[in-house]
């Protein structure tokens, strides 16, 4: 009663992996041919994988939630079929299993005896079109990769391995492949600057009463940063000027004014800029905003936020120059939103009060808005309202 290993097949024309959703069998269980073994989710579909053999489940090789590469063991089945009455269980021969060390067909590709040219260009390297494409995506120079496949062929893992270490050009320039969050930021920012005609306005506000309120809360045992005040002021100003909480619907030539106010919080993380979303911010008071914002910021830095907390913002708040000498900047709109608000650091500044120059705590605000939706007059009204809410936080 031999053990047979069932390897994860390519379930959908060129897939490389699948995520195990759930087992439908347990170790020790008897199964018939075509009995459902497990459910897996590929990039294309959720499918039920049926057993190729009758027998006893000897070992489950993966846990639910785990990603299994195509060709890796999924389950070991102890066959109950008497020898000789049925075909010997065999390994699949199809795409996705990769090159074989001992092919069943009795034929294998012979390594080329032609000596490699001294300085091969990319066209002289042996690599499949898919691998070449992957190399282009990752910015890997194929000529600099040592192939480990049959006959020195460069494989996908060779390319991905080479992409780990930033390669150095012939003239010493370093090239860094753009992947993941950096790539997403690049795409989003390019979309903003190429599709949204945006302009920026600036103001300085007096933070005296904001800091006083903050001090009062501190005395009462509630410690808050300026950020919740900024968020609450933006929410209030947005409620007064709903046009800023909108999106331009290119397909229909329509402006869509959003009912909900979901505030995006631009957060600097080690992986890059992330924008977790404080949903329904208009339903929260200052303390709730503070609590939720710290959860979101910590989650973004830990990389533990679910997609729901990372999408769907209707207006975004960002910090400009929270440290260092920088006062303000021109934030770029987070598409498809209409407005982004940048806050600088609160510092003592010279202000003219009743004709006298006095030192007061203050900070710069900058807003960038979509000029298709908002003209300068409305932007100024919004900014004025925003300054009023910041200067009268206890109003």
């Amino acid at each position, binding site marked *: 009663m031999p053990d047979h290993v069932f390897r994860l097949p390519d379930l959908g024309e060129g897939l490389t992996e699948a995520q195990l959703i759930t087992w439908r069998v347990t170790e020790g269980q008897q199964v018939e041919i075509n009995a459902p073994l497990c459910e897996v989710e590929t990039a294309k*579909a959720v499918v039920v994988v049926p057993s190729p053999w009758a027998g006893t489940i000897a070992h489950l090789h993966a846990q639910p939630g785990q990603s299994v590469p195509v060709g890796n063991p999924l389950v070991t089945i102890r066959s109950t079929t008497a020898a000789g009455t049925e*075909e010997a269980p065999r390994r699949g021969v199809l795409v996705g299993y990769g090159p074989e060390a001992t092919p069943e067909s009795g034929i294998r590709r012979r390594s080329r005896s032609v000596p490699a040219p001294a300085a091969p260009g990319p066209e002289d390297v042996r690599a499949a079109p898919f691998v070449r494409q992957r190399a282009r995506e990752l910015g890997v120079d194929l000529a600099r990769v040592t192939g480990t496949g049959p006959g020195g062929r460069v494989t996908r893992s060779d390319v991905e391995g080479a992409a780990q270490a930033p390669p150095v050009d012939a003239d010493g320039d370093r090239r860094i492949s753009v992947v993941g969050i950096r790539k997403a930021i690049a795409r989003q920012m390019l979309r903003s600057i190429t599709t949204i005609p945006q302009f920026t306005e600036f103001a300085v506000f007096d933070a005296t009463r904001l800091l006083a309120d903050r001090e009062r809360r501190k005395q009462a045992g509630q410690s808050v940063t300026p950020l919740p005040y900024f968020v609450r002021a933006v929410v209030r100003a947005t409620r007064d000027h709903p046009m800023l909480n909108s999106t331009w619907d290119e397909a229909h030539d329509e402006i869509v004014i959003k009912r909900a106010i979901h505030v995006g919080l631009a957060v600097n993380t080690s992986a890059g800029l992330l924008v977790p979303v404080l949903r329904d911010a208009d339903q929260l008071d200052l303390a709730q905003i503070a609590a939720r914002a710290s959860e979101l910021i910590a989650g973004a830095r830990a990389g533990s936020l679910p997609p729901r907390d990372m999408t769907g913002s209707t207006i975004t708040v960002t910090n400009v120059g929270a440290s260092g000498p920088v006062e303000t900047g021109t934030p770029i709109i987070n598409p498809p939103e209409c407005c982004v608000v940048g806050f600088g650091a609160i510092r003592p500044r010279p202000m003219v009060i009743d004709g006298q120059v006095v030192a007061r705590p203050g900070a710069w605000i900058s807003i960038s808005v979509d000029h298709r939706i908002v003209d300068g007059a409305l932007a100024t009204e919004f900014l004025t309202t925003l300054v009023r809410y910041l200067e009268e936080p206890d109003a």
Partner: protein
Amino acid sequence: MAQLNPEGTLPPAVAIEEAGLDRARLVDLYRWMVVIRRADAEALNLQRQGELGLWGQFLGQEAAQVGATLALHPDDWIFPSYREFGMGMCRGIDPAAMLYLFRGLTHGGWDPASHHFAPLAIPVASQVLHAVGYALGCKFDHSSQVVLACFGDGATSEGDWHEGMNFAGVFKCPVVFLCQNNHWAISVPLEKQTAGRIAERAAGYGFPGVRIDGNDVLTVYAVVRAAAERARRGDGPTLIEAVTYRMGAHSSADDPTRYRSDDQLAAWSPRDPIVRYEAWLLAEGHLDDARAGAIRAEADAVAQTMRTKLVNAPVPPPSEVLFDRVYTSPSRTFQAERDEFAATLEPSE
């Protein structure tokens, strides 16, 4: 046009005998539907087990495939799309051999001439041109053969389809166009791809079109038979729109739950072509439970034999698969390419 209703009862006006259906033939229609559905399910399992690269189910379309195939003379030609596996089985082709294509072992798998069944056409609607061309040849030869061109609703959006239809109308080719309208072109629903009724387009090409219940095997049989006889008499083509439903996915690489509602699927379930026909056969006394059980057992055996033969199929040398079935007399360049390829291979010790 519908005859058998969903409860499996038949209006009394339909003359079964006129359609050339005796009891043995009636049971045969049922038997084939059960057998091809079982083989279809086995093929999907084989794909999930890594034994096939791809599979396109035809679950729900058995009546259209069986009814149309059995309505033809054995030497009438069928030009199938990739979903007409069931028709090939009805023509006596070894189902395992038909699966070799989906295992990457061959580009064909059977001798089209001996089964009068052309290779499965993967490019959508390309087979319509082949069918019409063959039908024109039948006409030139004064042959009594007719041709069945098979395609889905999506294919009717293709230029090839229009060219074939137009040409067949102009030259009165002996061809029957069978559209299995299963409502889906992969994930595109019929209403997003076709504004009018498919059958009505035939008028524009100068021949009749008829829209029928494609889940009623008796209707399909009777209408295809009548259309084939019309073509055989020299009266030209007919377009048949057999309205059916793709109960499964477009292919094993597709997940229909992403684009269609359970409600739609549930609405079609009562119209399952096998369930309703079985109900009618049992009620009329043409079939009993013992015979039905024997047919199901036969279907299981066919599936098991198909599985065993498929997984043990020898793997042909790569050069044979790639080169040897392309030209009857290969050009020098082609031979050089084959030799160059062969030189990169070596037998294992």
